[in-house]
């Protein structure tokens, strides 16, 4: 048990801090913009971060990245320091698509897709879920048929985050209708400007339309815009899902939110009494603190396994399930302690924390469902981590 950072990493942290002190005035957004001047461009900021190795850090130089050896602890230090300085972090193109192309794409595909994605000139959306294929994603039915040198796509996707603004989509389609369901899928990439694509925003309970429905009618895509082989799209997609899942339920973010609630409860008063002086509210807060600390240290344990190249096993399997649940409960507590003020929304006067908690309460419920529902997570924990048998398959033709 050693919670100290070695000199190499302490120096690295100092280096990141010095860079941020010197350059954060150039960061895009209200905080970085000079009064009277247009805000700084996110692309210029991204370029500066790549040059210093704080964005696209491990992406090879020939594909527009910084080209460092993977070092999990340095990646973590960069994230921590940017969060501490409240400066927008850089990105690595798209954390689902780019690693997948680098791992499984052809040389021509890597050159085509990775550098502009890393520069922030090519943005992505993910075409996976369908109205009839949610948890059972492999049953998807959007089909692509080869016609000469082109795929012709017909069908519908749903829950497509950011589709209204994305330049490109990576998409799962059924290309081998006679094969067993997992072996009949291919992974295509194409421009959202391709004729025949219709994006319709899907308004959720928060009032925003982050998700979309995407309809395909005879959408023609060149034959070589497939990642991996025909019929191997499920394997390719699982490469991507592995990268996506890591991000949900981050324990450090949970700790930040917890501290904000503790602040509210020490600051706000009702009837002359601070919220934290109410023993029932206080006990709810403390119960959550115990759970959040346990998940924070669990995160340190996962990180230590990853640094050593070990598979963390169970400590990793539970992160999404527990982290999303805790976030939802925290937002619920914040709303409860605020009483009637907790109802306010959407720019209302008297709003606390800019309406963050009501929005999070709804968004976090979405995240309990999205990215593999809590129930699917429990199946995975039960089957993959504990070795319990799968549910016997119902005959495919059965009612």
């Amino acid at each position, binding site marked *: 048990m050693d919670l100290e950072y070695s000199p190499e990493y302490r120096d690295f942290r100092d280096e990141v801090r010095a860079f941020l002190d010197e350059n954060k005035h150039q960061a895009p957004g209200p905080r970085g913009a000079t009064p009277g001047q247009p805000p700084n461009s996110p692309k210029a900021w991204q370029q500066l971060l790549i040059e210093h190795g704080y964005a696209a850090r491990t992406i090879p130089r020939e594909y527009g990245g910084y080209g460092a050896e993977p070092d999990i602890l340095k990646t973590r230090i960069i994230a921590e320091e940017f969060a501490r300085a409240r400066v927008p972090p850089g990105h690595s193109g798209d954390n689902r698509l780019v690693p997948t192309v680098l791992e499984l794409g052809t040389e021509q595909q890597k050159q085509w897709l990775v550098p502009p994605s890393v520069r922030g000139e090519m943005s992505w959306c993910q075409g996976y879920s369908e109205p009839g294929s949610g948890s059972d994603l492999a049953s998807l039915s959007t089909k692509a048929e080869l016609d000469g040198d082109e795929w012709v796509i017909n069908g519908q996707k749903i829950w497509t985050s950011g589709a209204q603004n994305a330049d490109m989509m990576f998409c799962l389609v059924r290309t081998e209708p006679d094969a067993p369901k997992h072996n009949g899928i291919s992974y295509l990439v194409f421009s959202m400007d391709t004729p025949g694509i219709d994006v319709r925003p899907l308004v959720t309970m928060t009032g925003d339309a982050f998700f979309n429905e995407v309809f395909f009618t005879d959408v023609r895509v060149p034959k070589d815009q497939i990642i991996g082989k025909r019929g191997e799209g499920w394997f390719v997609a699982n490469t991507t899902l592995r990268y996506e899942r890591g991000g949900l339920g981050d324990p450090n973010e949970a700790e930040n939110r917890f501290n904000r609630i503790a602040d509210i409860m020490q600051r706000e008063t009702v009837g002359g009494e601070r919220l934290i002086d109410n023993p029932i509210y206080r006990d709810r807060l403390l119960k959550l603190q*115990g759970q959040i600390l346990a998940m924070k240290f669990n995160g340190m*344990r996962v990180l230590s396994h990853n640094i050593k190249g070990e598979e963390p096993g169970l400590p990793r399997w539970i992160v999404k399930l527990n982290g999303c649940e805790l976030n939802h409960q925290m937002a619920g507590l914040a709303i409860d302690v605020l009483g009637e003020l907790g109802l306010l929304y959407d720019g209302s006067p008297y709003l606390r924390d800019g309406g963050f908690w009501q929005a999070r309460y709804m968004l976090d419920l979405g995240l309990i469902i999205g990215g593999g529902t809590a129930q699917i997570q429990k199946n995975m924990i039960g089957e993959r981590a504990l070795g319990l048998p799968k549910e016997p398959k119902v005959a495919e033709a059965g009612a």
Partner: protein
Amino acid sequence: MDFALGEEQRMLQDSIARYLESGCPLERVRDVAEAGDARADDVWQELTNLGVHGVLVGEDYGGVGLGLLEAALIAEALGAAVAPVPFAASAVMAPVALADAGSGEQKEAWLPRIAAGEAVIGIGVSEQIGRRETDGVRAENGRLNGKAMFVLDAAAADALLIASDDGALHLVDPSANGIERAKLKTIDRTRTVAEVVLSDAPAELLPGSADNREPLLRMIDAGRLMLAADTLGAAQTMADKAVAYAKERRQFNRVIGSFQAVKHMCAEMAAELEPCRSLVWYAAHAYVAIPEEGRLMACHAKAHLSEVGKFVARKSTEVHGGMGITDLLGLHYWFKRIGFNRQLLGAPELVREEAAQAQAWV
């Protein structure tokens, strides 16, 4: 940066767990519990050989001189096996208090005997956490008067370490005049607690605890961590037994673990329990290495493990169906051990209130 057990820590825990598997099976636990014995003497002896009782005693005094994390790993192994031997009070709380606040002679008199397995010290501090009106201990002129309840590891104790109402700690010889010790029957027959009535009983103050509550509080922190670690071990055994049973028991022509209703109970136990391991490790590490966080983390470890332990104890019993509540299966030994750890040294609501105080929230 490495948040993991070291090789030697893993070996320590493995060696104790391996011994307990063969030397302290459920039948042995049952013998001790049914006879109402204070401890399993054979298990106690072998644990002495493994260095368990001297884990926190410095090498100068014949101990192994390890830290609280190692002690927590031992407590976890003992909880996993529901081992009927004194540990939390005698091998952890007493050495911590003696090292902190004892005189040279007191250390010399007790630490070597604790390490050698020749002496057990019971701890009476319940009144410092939740005092009932009929209880409490007053110290005057080297004498104690009053009543200490739920004195831990008391039945086989050669000495008792009792806190008086002002927070000072006193060594008491249980065979002296003016002391009556009566065992209290609890649900858990694998550890002992007693009621101790003191009538002008001779007592020896630990000098460092006069007008200084810190030794008492540090000792309670250490004790809470041990109960948390014990629950971690006991709950892990219950979860493992549930998973094993779910893989083997068949109904409706299927093993019951293939039903999602059962599978999800197992997954929930795992999801709740696994982070507890990291919390216990961190809290035990912080007790020594990050003392400013020590109290807060000990409180959270005790309270959170109490909650998760209760959840796992219930769910594991349910997965076992009707067999879960039988004496034949014996799952109840773990169920009761977890219950004991929850109530002793502060139930979770009380301990969370102390966590609030540690952060100056109240």
